[in-house]
């Protein structure tokens, strides 16, 4: 990622309670790796990744790929960093809101995070994708899928059950968010020169990033 040769700089921000796996999810997405050791994020960090967003024409033809540089902000979930991390909310175009499927409190706090976003983001209804992470720990699950899905529907946001450990649904969730942003941009200019999209990534991950994710509307799982 050494040149500025891209078409869009898109900034996302991951948020959620401490320990839900924000850093791990981003690391899995950008590097395809997982580290089970918990290293708390100091305040703020970001990772970067290049993806290609491929637009489908109305006839289903695949258009020219849009080269996207993703800046993925990672925030500390710890309360003590809150004033610092909140300051970054306003600069993100979309949000990846995570909770831990094995930690009910982190799920209950989703509401609070959403109201934080409504207050501090660049607009009142920013694009958010909700992720219930650690889906690989099925035996420790504390949040039912229906519950989480219900909450997501209430807010009208997509929901994914992800696992940073095995990579499940990670790129799907982020690319869904990207799709939402691209559509929002399109609406912004009231012009449909970016039609229905497909995300194709390239970057650090090698094999799994070329899987094209068809646009699936509101929910990708």
């Amino acid at each position: 990622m050494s040149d500025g040769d891209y078409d869009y700089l898109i900034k996302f921000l991951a948020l959620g309670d401490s320990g839900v796996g924000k850093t791990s999810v981003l690391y899995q997405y950008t590097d395809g790796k997982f580290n089970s050791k918990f290293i708390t994020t100091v305040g703020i960090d970001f990772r970067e990744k290049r993806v290609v967003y491929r637009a489908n024409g109305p006839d289903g033809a695949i258009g020219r790929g849009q080269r996207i540089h993703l800046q993925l902000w990672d925030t500390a979930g710890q309360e003590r960093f809150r004033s610092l991390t909140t300051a970054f909310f306003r600069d993100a175009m979309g949000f990846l809101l995570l909770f831990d499927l094995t930690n009910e409190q982190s799920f209950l706090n989703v509401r609070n995070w959403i109201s934080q976003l409504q207050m501090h983001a660049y607009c009142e209804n920013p694009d958010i994708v909700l992720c219930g992470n650690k889906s690989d720990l099925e035996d420790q699950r504390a949040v039912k899928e229906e519950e989480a899905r219900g909450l997501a529907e209430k807010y009208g946001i997509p929901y994914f059950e992800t696992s940073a450990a095995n990579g499940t649904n990670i790129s799907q969730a982020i690319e869904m968010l990207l799709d939402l942003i691209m559509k929002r941009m399109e609406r912004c200019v009231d012009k449909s020169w970016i039609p229905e999209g497909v995300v194709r990534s390239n970057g650090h991950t090698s094999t799994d990033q070329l899987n094209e994710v068809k646009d699936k509307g509101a929910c990708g799982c």
Partner: protein
Amino acid sequence: MPQRGHPSQEGLWALPSLPMEHGPEPEAEGLLDLSFLTEEEQAAIAEVLKRDAHLRQLEEGRVSKLRASLVDPGQLKILTGDWFQEARSQRHHHAHFGSDLVRASIRRKKSSRGTLPEKGAHGASHLGPGDQAVGSDGEAEAAGKENEEEPEPRPPIDEAPQERLQETEGPDFPPPYVPLKASDQEEEPQAQEAPGHGGVQVCEEKADQELEPASRVEKEPLPAPDQVGGSGLRLLSRPGADSGRGVLLPGLRAICDPVRSGEGKGKRGRPCHFSPLRTKAAPKILENGEEAPGSGPALDRMLSSSSSVSSLNSSTLSGSLVSLSGEAEAVPVRGSVHFALHYEPGAAELRVHVIQCQGLAAARRRRSDPYVKSYLLPDKQSKRKTAVKKRNLNPVFNETLRYCVPQAELPGRVLSLSVWHRESLGRNIFLGEVEVPLDTWNWDSEPTWLPLQPRVPPSPDELSSRGLLSLSLKYVPAGSEGAGLPPSGELHFWVKEAQDLIPLRSGSLDTYVQCSVLPDDSRASRQRTRVVRRSLSPVFNHTMVYDGFGPADLRQACAELSLWDHGALASRQLGGTRLSLGTGSSYGLEVPWMDSTPEEKRLWQTLLEQPCEWVDGRLPLRTNLAPRT
């Protein structure tokens, strides 16, 4: 409930420590309180912010190229990210990036702790006001001219006479580092279609954790860095002349002098002469202002000037000390410059490969004869120039400008590249500039395009003023008086007198002078003289001392001295002067009050250059100080 790893023990949503919990406008107006961060945490965050600044710098280059090459407004809006900025600006009135806010907040924390490493040992003696040996007006003026802008043309000091390159600029001194920002609506430059290079690669090659905006400033020839022991500022106020220091207060406390405490307190009125600046209006004003600097009433121009400074997110503006005032030839800035930087360790040489420019403005009837000039700031003798390319708005230079400089010094340097139209029969015309802080430069990057930036529009010369204020200033670096004294850098103000005051209605005035050293505008740090009654030439003869200032802090600070008419119920501000480098920003944040006039900047610069000496000024008490917020 089964949990894995580190359970979240949050549920702390109602903590009062969340400053942004309430109200529809989430942004704290000021800096964040980051005092809870440890040094290590600060360093880690600083590193992240540095990477972000680098990414933004590249993004800005990309966006400016787009603006020049794309015509479809819709497409442009999307590709540049303007759609986002527009939405964001409807909600967040200040344009600060979270990164900048945090950066500035950390910087403030650092400065108040006094972590400046070096310790100065200077034999310069402490001269009291009574000694008044140094810094006559003439000397101050002369010294100032070395560095500052001037309204009138003058022969450049470092130019061979036969070259006749009478640029309207002077050798700049470096601004505090303000990171380049991506694509605000104010984006001015327009480049033509150009191939993009410029690495997005995150810059991690430097281990130093220095993030303070003013870091490189400390490498300036200012001879007396300090070691600041205490916390916060110590303020001493004493009437009359020199007396012993020795009152050391922790925190922000002011000692009232007897005269002042003897008179009515709490009778200050908050002045509010101006409606708040609308930063949105800035771009238009800036353009117009540059087209026709001579038009418009002085007040408007001053306001537009300061608002432009505060809204244009560019490092280049902050260093722009050049007056284009009265330049009928001033042309709007546009275009980009393409260059590469390479450091050759063997030769200890910085090589600036100036490749080309694209989309330059036409200085003369659709033509320009451009050349590129560089300075390796803060070295003002470091001018290098390319050849002149005649009749070319997209000149290809392919020249290498070389600087012999130790590698270790690079992080403290700023490369200034400015583009000029060579005018054979008159003064050369400024076409734009970029400033590249080398501390965040990615040395592995490919050649980079950066948009050319305008300089600050001139402050009008015909400011309306309420009279003149005579004062002397002195900066006493820490340790400069021997035996570790003073313990931190001290800023001395000797408010002498005001002259030629214009009364409000009829008759006379009861006046006093109030001083604040911004960004600290707290009540506790305000100091005042006594009230001198019924005089249009009041003599105050009052000194005030502020401490806790390292040399780098002085570059970020602005001393505001205002003259007030003392009323029984409320006082009224009559005018004032703001002494600063006038960069438009302080600790990385754009602020309206860094709006010093050339004259004021000159005095402050002289103060910086002559520690331990009184420097004298006689300044107009301006009535157009931009509102502080």
